[in-house]
């Protein structure tokens, strides 16, 4: 009974694939995506991109022997020469586990790599991290965003810049990384307040001491 229900769902909700795939791959590059000319209300809606989209493919025209070939070639990713090599070559170990960095919420250069330009965190299938590291990164990113350390990675109407926020949110705050459960057992840090000693009052001076008299042999 249960399985038949699932099959029914699949039959009902199957997407209609009319667009052939070779046009679909060009569509993703936003090059041939033409804006719909008229809306339901008769108004035009243009798709304006404020940030430059990532082009997957590039159109290359080559001529030889009176034959012009136009093809869409895959573009090399801009990160080619900058990748960190996984010190443990075994692919089962994720990069952050292998590097063994003591990440803090102030390590903005590393944490911003896991975000979209929106400020949204990228999923695990793209970052390639293990489940534990992905959780740690999400918590650290949340801390950094609350502390106002990444105000340029934000959706447009937001107030990621703390100076624009209302009330207590505009004041500076910091976070303690030990509160992340996945983090606490590995990196035990000394509590900050112990770097400077508490002022202790001296005990009152001893006025007189009772000492046992020495027994001399007589």
């Amino acid at each position, binding site marked *: 009974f249960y399985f038949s229900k699932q099959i029914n769902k699949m039959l009902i909700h199957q997407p209609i694939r009319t667009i052939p795939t070779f046009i679909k791959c060009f569509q*993703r590059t936003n090059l041939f995506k033409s804006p719909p000319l008229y809306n339901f209300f008769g108004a035009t809606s243009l798709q304006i991109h404020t940030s430059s989209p990532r082009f997957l493919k590039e159109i290359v025209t080559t001529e030889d022997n009176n034959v012009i070939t136009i093809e869409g070639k895959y573009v090399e990713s801009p990160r080619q020469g900058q990748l960190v090599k996984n010190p443990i070559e075994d692919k089962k170990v994720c*990069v952050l586990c292998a590097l063994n960095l003591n990440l803090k919420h102030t390590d*903005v250069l590393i944490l911003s790599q896991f975000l979209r*330009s929106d400020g949204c965190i990228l999923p695990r299938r793209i970052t390639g991290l293990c489940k534990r590291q992905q959780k740690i990164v999400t918590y650290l990113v949340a801390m950094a965003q609350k502390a106002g350390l990444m105000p340029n990675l934000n959706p447009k109407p937001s107030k990621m810049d703390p100076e624009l926020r209302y009330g207590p949110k505009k*004041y500076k*705050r*910091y976070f303690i990384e030990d509160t992340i459960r996945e983090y606490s057992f590995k990196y035990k840090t000394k509590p900050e307040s112990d*770097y400077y000693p508490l002022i202790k009052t001296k005990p009152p001076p001893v006025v007189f001491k009772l000492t046992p008299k020495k027994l001399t042999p007589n």
Partner: protein
Amino acid sequence: MSLTRRTQQWATFGRTWYLYDMKWQNPFHSARKIAYVLSGRNKPIFEDRTDCGDHVVAINSRHISLPGNEWEKRVYYHHTGYPGGATWTLAHELHAKDPTIIVEKAVYSALDKDLTRHGRMRKLHIFPDDKVPEKIMQNVTHQLRQMRPVPVRLDHIPKDVVDNFPKIFDWPKDFVLK
């Protein structure tokens, strides 16, 4: 006294003026450090009842940072003495009224709870911003080290540093980034 002996006397018993930048610092941990210096416990000539403490000029008290949600949760209690005169004000409300009060109260609680407290508080000079009167700044000679490292915002880092920073993962083959 000879001249050398006299200068030695001035050097040991003279009051030094310290500068402490409170930007991105926790006021309660910093207060411990400041109270240590105000009481004169950093000196070998320390004696509790003699007035041997140093001056501390605390700047940028408007830019202190509290951990987590303490701005919304920390409460300061005050009673006027009259019936119905109890008030509970939150830290962010107090900070909005006067940005020096939180630091002042923190240092007051960190000092020894005896009659020397008011004398030592007079040696503390708190300013909300970088702006310090000239007469006080002329006396300042030393600086106390900050307790917490100051974080850097992403938009304050130059763009070429961000672009050339080593990347942890590469984009998958057919992935379009927004």
